[in-house]
């Protein structure tokens, strides 16, 4: 299966990011979708690439600035009189 990677697949790979980001013209999207219908490997690459991007974006929301880091930052910038200010 892994060795099944044709010229069309390589062409799709080159446009994959832009396809995922919705930055390709409709004509090219239609060509890609036609290829995807008949190529399981490319469907897998597309699905798993999309999921990879989703996964890195999810934890980003959880990585809020810790309170003590904010306090030290404000102290370092001599802004400690604004520490209580609501964000």
């Amino acid at each position, binding site marked *: *299966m*892994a060795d099944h*990677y044709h010229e069309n697949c*390589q062409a799709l*790979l*080159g446009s*994959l*990011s*832009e396809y995922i980001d919705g*930055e390709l013209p409709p004509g090219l999207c239609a060509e890609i979708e036609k290829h995807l219908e008949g190529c*399981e*490997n490319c*469907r*897998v*690459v597309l*699905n*798993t*690439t*999309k*999921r*990879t*991007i989703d*996964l*890195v*974006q*999810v*934890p*980003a929301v959880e*990585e*809020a*600035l*810790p309170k003590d*880091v*904010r306090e*030290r*930052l*404000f102290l*370092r*910038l001599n*802004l400690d*009189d*604004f520490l209580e*200010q609501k*964000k």
Partner: protein
Amino acid sequence: MEEFSLDALRSGDRAEFARLVDTYSTPIYRLGLKMLGNQQDAEDVLQNTFLNALTHLKDFEGRSSISTWLYRIASNEALMSMRRKKNTVNLDDFQPEETDDVPLPEVFVDWSALPEDELLSGESKKAMDAAVSKLPESLLMVFVLRDIEGLSIKETAEILNLTETNVKTRLLRARMFLRERLSTYYRERLAPEERPNG
């Protein structure tokens, strides 16, 4: 997008600067965490970015947005810190690459439909962090700005002083690199137990 008064910032309005710090400290800290992989280095990047901004605000002409300007300072801080840690200084490291080649995928396991709790488990998160930490520096910068911070191709290009085409190529290479690593990780988890008992 929050608006800031450049005049107030340039004239030393501390309340306005505090508002700027509160708006951008979370994304800049996150950038440091992703680039350097630990909280202490991320905090250094955060502090140095705003100290630097404070020093140079009077020279900021507003040709780019304030957010692009801050991200640029933060990216430089993170890059310098990475290079100090590696104990090497190679000014060519961040020049556009000659090659546009994207490595071909080799693992074709569709793990995308795994349940969310499996994909977001602590172990999966570790696998993702390990994969991100293996990204080459030039791909990591683009990936963090575009896919983690959610900036546009244009903004990313402006921050890193690259062409948009170059950003797109690096982004694709970064995404493919991570996809391959995660696919290898999930292939092992999804593989049925083939060994006989005992």
